[in-house]
């Protein structure tokens, strides 16, 4: 990699990394990803209850969202839940990936792999109904009605989404650096911290981001697992879906979107200054 960077400077005319049509496809793809954001932002200023037909400019939906405590509450709960679930699932998935990738075969390895990936193999409704029955007995026995059920359920179904990118990254890493560290009498934890983790980090980041997105969008399992008062933005929207979705949600989503773009832009500026 590093050698390649040096070479690139010397051989400007021939870029090894270049693959024809890839940059164009990539830019098209990124543009398409942002395409739905345009109507989202646009119609959040619509002076009408419609999301699809323009009537004129107004701040009314921002005001409405500002005054709607319930919508704020469920949005914050969604974000908090996604954050917790992605952190937990990524930690668990990283450990599991280390235990199942680049290791000599051992008994139960296949089973572990199957269990880890099982949540993505059944439609959500099945896990949802099964969890409903299972958690109901716990709820009845303990009387506990907090968010732990949601955190647990979200962590579980996020695990494969964190695990697969991390595993894919690990598969392409060979053991030589880690073995060198071990040869120099570094403890396993030190080896992990100083060698494995930095090399693995892009995989971990990818896994955590996926888990975050997946948890944020979950409807069906949340609908069945949630305890009183623990609605998330998606389950709240499920109710609106049946009746009418107002641009209020557009307004709140637009704010979140702009804030996240600003955050990402800022990190870009900071990191490129370094």
């Amino acid at each position, binding site marked *: 990699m590093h050698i390649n960077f040096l070479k690139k400077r010397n051989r400007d005319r021939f870029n090894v990394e270049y693959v024809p049509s890839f940059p164009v496809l990539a830019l098209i793809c990124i543009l398409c990803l942002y395409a739905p954001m345009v109507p989202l932002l646009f119609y959040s200023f619509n002076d*009408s*209850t*419609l*999301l*699809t*037909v323009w009537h004129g400019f107004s701040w009314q939906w921002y005001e409405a969202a500002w005054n*709607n*405590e*319930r919508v704020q509450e469920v949005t914050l709960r969604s974000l908090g839940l996604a954050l917790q679930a992605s952190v*937990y699932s990524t*930690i*668990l998935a990283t*450990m599991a990936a280390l235990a199942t990738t680049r290791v000599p075969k051992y008994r139960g390895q296949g089973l572990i792999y199957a269990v880890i990936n099982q949540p993505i193999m059944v439609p959500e409704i099945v896990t949802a*109904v099964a969890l*409903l*029955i299972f*958690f*109901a*007995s*716990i*709820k*009845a*026995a303990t009387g*506990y*009605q*907090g*968010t*732990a059920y949601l*955190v*647990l359920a979200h*962590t579980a179904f996020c695990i494969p989404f964190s695990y697969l990118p991390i595993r894919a990254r690990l598969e392409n890493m060979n053991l030589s650096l880690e073995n060198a560290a071990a040869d120099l009498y570094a*403890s*396993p*934890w030190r080896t992990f911290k100083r060698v494995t983790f930095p090399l693995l980090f892009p995989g971990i980041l990818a896994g955590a981001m996926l888990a975050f997105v997946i948890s944020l969008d979950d409807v069906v399992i949340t*609908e*069945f697992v*949630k*305890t*009183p*008062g*623990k*609605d998330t933005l998606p*389950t*709240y*929207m*499920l*109710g*609106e*879906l*049946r*009746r*009418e*979705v107002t641009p209020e949600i557009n307004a709140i989503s637009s704010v979140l979107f702009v804030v996240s773009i600003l955050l990402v832009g800022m990190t870009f500026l900071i990191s490129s200054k370094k």
Partner: protein
Amino acid sequence: MRQLKNSIIISSVAASMLFVSQSVSAAGELNIYNWGDYTSPELVTKFEETYNVTVTITDYDSNDTALAKVKAGGHGFDIAIPSANYMPIWISEGLLLKTRPDQMSNFKNVLPEWTNPDWDPGRHYSVPYQWGSVGMVVNTDVYSGDINTSAIAFDPPEELVGKINVAPEMGDIIGMALYYVGSEPCTDDKAALKKARDVLMAAKPKWVSMTYGIKEPFASGDIAASVYWNGDAMRTRQETPSVHYGYPKEGYVLWMDSVVVLKDAQNVENAKLFQNFMMEPESAAIASNFAMYANGIKGSSEFMLEILATAPEVQIPAEHLPNGRFIEMCSAEVNKLYSGIWTEMMK
């Protein structure tokens, strides 16, 4: 061995982090489990202030979800608001508390036609919340003929072909098709069911979608007719004035959602207060102004929004009244035929 120790530490820390949680205090509370986007925040505030109770709202998306969740137990809710056709199940499964709303102080406010419904004789369990109908929503700019017929959906006129949406409600739609072929919903008469199936199979290619939410596609022109709920028809008309609501003369479906107290409720007294509170004309009107349906409480119209009190979608015109009927819950056997027809239709 150190490896092992480290792994154990990591594992246990990770596992224990999962069970971090906060506890909730329980004094003067009420947990309401209601359809999403169906509970007025104003109503909640009014109840909280009047009785010094903290109300928690939780949403459900269908009768089946609500029933499954309450039946599983340990749900933690005090109040639910199921639909009329599901009510007999809630009662026979022993999920409800017999709170005797008929003996409550505000019961005198309930309109006479709602005091003794078939699904809860004598109102021993439930209090009316909202009621309405399922009918034909048609853009009369596109089709100007008679809209008071379910032929709009089952034998659509040329102008509407490929522009019809049908609500994905198995019971309501097959029930309506059975009315259309001159039979009754939940019949076990196989000849009638077969006719209904044939009607549905022939009509379905002429529909464009079977989904929820009609206001947007009417406004954008993606659909020009829909089988849908009356309240939504009224709200669609606010944006697209040429949209009108038809009451099929072959028969159309009525529904009512009612407030019930659950058997394993933690806050029974507050829940009873809420039932009584919902029979006050002003509270009922607040609920209607938010949900945009009629409520069944005498004297509530003076507190209601102007459009709601006069809308032909909400106040059923006298000539259409006799064609509206409540549908029952079909027996398991008939339901199986229903879902067979439904699956075949949507394969």
